[in-house]
């Protein structure tokens, strides 16, 4: 029945499809306005990229000895965002965490888009000669040349490609029943398109059986990837000899950091989505609270890693390590370092208070802070370490310029653009899973009647 319903009661089984598919109706003017704005900026950023292709990477802000700049920071940032999506949809699925069902679809979509955007950076934007980026792919060629598998960048290629493939399959598999539901309620071209991608799903037992098995399999595949992919990305740095990069704590540090930033991004995206689509009953405050609690854990791990780095810099007695850390904490980039410490390790501690973690505004603000802090952390590690390494003659301070910033903002716009498209054209909540979790359709009681 429609009308007033208490928040705690949630949705009833019969209402789930309707509520969620309601979001696929024709969007309002503000949606189109925002979408076109994002699209225009993406085009502009694309133009700037073309300018960079034409004249060379010199148009960006690079200042040797820092040879890696904001583009790689973006890469690591976006991969990090991607990981928590998989955490929510795959790992929590394996752990049978019921509270994930409301957000798993959107989180997984976030993963897909983030990985796509992350992949743009090392392949096309960051390379000196992007037109031969494919040499990094081991394809048969007449020169009999293999790429060098000893290089961490090769691990990256393999890991990220695998991750993208598995995530895409996982997401798509989960989408099939929902696309079928959308197909059933749509007309005309939409019906045809949804039907095409629903692959003729008719909800038979056999199909559900296959669906369950493959979803579980893919979740199982995706889970270790969360740990491995970001470990591999961290080895881009940990396998270098530069003080500030060369640290064995990087894999767990980066994985925790990735999940940390990803969860924050989940909050950042879903709190507005929930408000705009009125999904308060599906994406409940309890769900968000659980996300916040996970954030505390990740924040503590990240804080531990900061402390360990400080300790090792002193304990090693290595003059390069020591001076590198002192530069990080008190040198040119010091403000960024302290912002990073505050936003990533200190701010999430506020979630220890129940009031804070059940307040929508606090959740949103702290999520934004964590996003900023995690971005700054990657900058401090990647760019800060390089500006102050072994040979003092080579030191130099890097700061992104308009090209770097435009392309970075362009990547955020592209992400939002894709996400907005997703939100409007695909069911942004996993209807099948929500219903699966709900009890049998009783007259009274909602989704979480059990």
């Amino acid at each position: 029945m429609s009308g007033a319903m208490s928040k705690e009661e949630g949705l009833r089984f019969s209402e789930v499809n309707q509520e969620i598919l309601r979001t696929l109706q024709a969007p309002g003017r503000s949606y189109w306005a925002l979408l076109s704005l994002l699209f225009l900026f993406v085009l502009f950023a694309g133009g700037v990229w073309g300018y960079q292709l034409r004249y060379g990477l010199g148009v960006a802000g690079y200042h040797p000895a820092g040879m890696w700049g904001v583009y790689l920071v973006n890469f690591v940032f976006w991969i990090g965002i991607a990981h928590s999506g998989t955490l929510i949809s795959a790992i929590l699925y394996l752990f049978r965490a019921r509270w994930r069902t409301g957000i798993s679809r959107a989180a997984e979509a976030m993963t897909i888009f983030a990985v796509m955007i992350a992949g743009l950076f090392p392949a096309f934007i960051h390379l000196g000669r992007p037109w031969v980026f494919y040499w990094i792919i081991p394809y048969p060629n007449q020169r009999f040349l293999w790429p060098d598998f000893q290089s961490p960048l090769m691990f990256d290629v393999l890991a990220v490609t695998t991750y993208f493939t598995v995530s895409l399959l996982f997401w798509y598999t989960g989408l099939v029943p929902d696309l079928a539901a959308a197909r059933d309620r749509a007309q005309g071209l939409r019906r045809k398109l949804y039907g095409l991608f629903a692959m003729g799903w008719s909800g038979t037992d056999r199909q559900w059986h296959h669906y369950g098995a493959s979803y579980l399999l893919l979740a199982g595949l995706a889970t270790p990837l969360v740990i491995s992919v970001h470990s591999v990305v961290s080895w881009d740095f940990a396998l270098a000899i530069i003080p500030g990069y060369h640290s064995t704590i990087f894999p767990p540090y980066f994985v925790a950091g990735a999940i940390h930033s990803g969860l924050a991004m989940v909050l950042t995206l879903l709190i507005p989505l929930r408000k705009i689509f009125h999904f308060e009953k599906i994406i409940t405050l309890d769900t968000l609270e659980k996300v916040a609690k996970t954030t505390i854990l990740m924040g503590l791990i990240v804080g531990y890693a900061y402390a360990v780095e400080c300790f090792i810099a002193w304990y090693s007695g290595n003059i390069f390590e020591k001076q590198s850390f002192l530069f990080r904490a008190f040198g040119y980039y010091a403000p960024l370092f302290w912002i990073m410490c505050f936003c990533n390790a200190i701010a999430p501690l506020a979630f220890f208070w129940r009031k804070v973690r059940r307040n929508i505004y606090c959740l949103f603000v702290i999520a934004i802070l964590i996003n900023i802090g995690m971005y700054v952390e990657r900058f401090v590690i990647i760019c800060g370490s390089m500006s102050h390494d072994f040979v003092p003659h080579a030191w130099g301070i890097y700061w992104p310029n308009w090209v770097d910033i435009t392309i970075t903002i362009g990547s955020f716009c592209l992400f939002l653009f894709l996400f907005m498209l997703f939100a409007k054209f695909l069911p942004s909540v996993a209807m099948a899973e929500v219903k699966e979790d709900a009890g049998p359709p009783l007259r009274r009681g909602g989704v979480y009647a059990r």
Partner: protein
Amino acid sequence: MAKLSRRQFLKAACLAGTSALVGACSDATRRLIPYVIPPEDILPGDATWYATTCRECPAGCGMLAKNCDGRVIKVEGNPLHPVNTGKLCARGQASVQGIYNPDRYRGPMVRGGDGKLSVISWESAEKVLSDRLSAFGSNGRREKVVFLTDLRTGAERDLIGRWLAASGSTQHVMYEPFAYEALRKANQTVFGTDAIPTYYIDKADFLLSFGANFLETWVSNVQFARQFAFFHAPKEGKKNAFVYVGPRLSMTAANADQWIMVPPGGESVVALGLLRLMLNQGPETGDRGPANNNPASALTADERAALKASVAPFTPDAVKRATGVKPDLLAALAGQLARAQRPLILAEGLGYQDPKAYETAVAANMLCSFFPGNLQTTDFSSPSSLSDVVKADRMKALADAMLSGEVHVLVIDRANPVFNLPVSWQFEKALRTVPMVVSFSSYPDETGEFAHLVLPTNTFLESWGDYSPRRGVHGLLQPVMGPLFETRQLGDILLSTGRKVKPEAFPEKDLYEVLRKAWSKKAKEAGAAAPSEAFWQESLQKGGVWAALKEERPARPRATTDSLIFSRPEASAASQSEGLAKGLGFIAYPTIQFFDGRMANRPFLQEMPDPVTQITWAGWVEINPETARRLNIEKGDMLTVRAEQGMVKGAAFPYFRIAPDTLAMPMGHGHSAFGRYTQSETTNPLHLASGRIDSAGGVIWPAATVAVEKEGRVVPIANTDGSAFQHGRDLVRSISLQQYRSTMAAVPEVTLPLPQGWDKRIDYYPPHQHIDYRWVMIVDLDRCIGCGACVIGCYAENNVGVVGRREVERGRHMAWLNIQRYFEADQPSIRFLPMLCQHCDEAPCESVCPVFGPQHNAEGINNQVYNRCIGTRFCSQNCPYKVRRFNWFTWKHDRPLQWQLNPDVTVRGKGVMEKCSFCIQRINAARIQARSENRLIRDGEFSPACVQTCPADALIFGNLLDAQSRVSKLIKQARAYQVLHELNTKPGVIYLKKITQVLT
């Protein structure tokens, strides 16, 4: 698909075929015309080397120029030439950018009424000149034509003299801004000869320099660098000492064992104080008078007494008051001097840094004369040709003569007095009053701006000629390639215009004939047994003719002390304190890159970091950091420096090693009309010259004290060093002489870049196996003087891109080899570290490239494969030495500078990483040559460009697998170490620690 008939198919096929053919012929192919009958000497891809002489400065080093496919692309020193014995300095290496300079005059021009130049033909241009000259001859008035050039000798000078005589003039003014007037006068006073002798630093056992920057610009820098390397090398546990006295730590001072800082003008005070100490010591030390058989001095007792009286005021306390030099330091210096057998005391003899240059030079000469050994270190029988240039007072007289209308025709070639002379002499205004000014220069410059007629001459690489840097050495010049533009040789122009004025005086057809005539005369003088033609060919191949060094020098006039009056030290102290009250001292110093400014239009040299400040492009104003703090000046503040003569502008650069309350500006910046590479906001420091002339006839510096004010804006300074200190990292190491002696037998801490260097405990991958060769380089930090010749040699050889000022500010300097400079707290207080790709045996760059861009080859070289690089830049990130350079843009070469590019080396485009390759093209050429002779490459058979040109022999290159090679022996020296050794990269570049010593 529509049906295709056979006719249609054939039509389409033909069309496609022909368009493919046409399309395949690029524009370039149509312009490349292969030789049907190839010219002699030219084998495509094979180079021919021609011996010639460098004319970038009066030193006149012998040069071998490489002509490849009809273009000169590289120059190296002529090993047979006695001045430079096979090496060139940075300026010499940059001469290839002179011939291809985009701002060169391309043909004769005439200046219209609107002040703009327009092209005319050679015939008309020469006619204008010869018509004007003929007018004089017929009028019978003399001294109306003045020919202003730089230092010329031999056949060319004679020809100029003849040409002037044809118009009734004798006014050939050879103007060199560095004419060392004070030195010449001091030589006249003390030794009775108004000349600059040839100095032999390698024969000395103690060297003391009062401001003479002999490793940079003083008289003959490559010659002195070669001699200094020999002088300063440790021999049997002993090391000769070099002390430098001056207001700033110049590059030369950086190589001293002790730098004694004095305020500007304090050099003479210290010198005279030293003289007093030496005179007051007994005859066992000090003056080895006639009683001790000193043919160099032989002062009579009266003369000694008179001298003692003149220097009596210069007590150690007075010296301390005037200069700040402590009495014990002065005493130590005197002691060291007294113990030496053949000390050499040099004085700069120029007024740019020392207002009492004459007194300093006299004191230095007197000190020299106390030692019989001085006859071996100073040779007046072979005076430098610089002794023939006019003194600055002559230039003032010329300016006055021009202003009063006495000069009717002024002909200029390779002189730029508007830039170099004091503004108060009004040379610019004087130029305007001369009715006809003709410029023969190859490049537009400040003086050429006022030329009515421009008849551009060939650069020296395109010309015949001869040049004799000192008596007994006659270098030849020959064209290394044909003239690039519509220019002619100076001699040819003089002959053809002279013929129009007085045909009988110029029977020769061209300059070549003049030269041949002069040379056959020389052949007779030399008593050559061979006929003239054979002598000529031999001289041409050798690069000239020079008499063998005679070991015994003829006796020299004895020193005299007539009319020696020295200004009192109190006066100096007074002016010093006056100075402090009024303003700051100001000096302008010559730079190794630009000399007196004449080389500023070479992009290589603009991009070359100054050895001590590491600044590229645009000038700067050095200021002591304490003074800067007091005046609230920070690095980059745009300053205006005012003196009574005018003002100059420059960006402030706090420099640790300059006397307090003193400003210094390098010469060479501040050109207003010398081409596109010289444009900067800095103005010419020479404009602050006082305009006064000292007793020797030279310009006096510094100006009366200056006032400095901030303009209020900050300009970025394009210096290449991220930090000026080592921060305790021990990258450039030194040991004291005592340590060196006691550890000579020790085993060095070196991990050999060979399988022997492998250690199972720390190495994961198996060692590299090398085939026949493992190329390594030894860098002897004790020999490196920091001159940067290697850097420019590398630029020229390897097509390294010049990035320009803005990109240097962003750290994108492309030098494969850079001379890093670190300040130290102890003496010597600057260290130079040549840093290049270390070709590590376990290179961090190799394992991180995803596409095998850097590769270790079987001879130990870390190859960078340009075609394979996709530009991830991980290799550079992982290189701890940071020697990898990335092409952020495709660096442009302003035409026709691209003709200088070496065809054996790829020109890299944007997006690709590059770095030192140990000149792999030279290695390959040597290996091919050796293989064709069925042998291995011999040690020393070839060398990379940097090793080839290092004047101090600080770089040694060779094969470590050859037990007899020099590198195999040097690597065992106790001094050997590797930079960042603890990272286990096993570098193939091994450094030898610098040996330091202090005055005792």
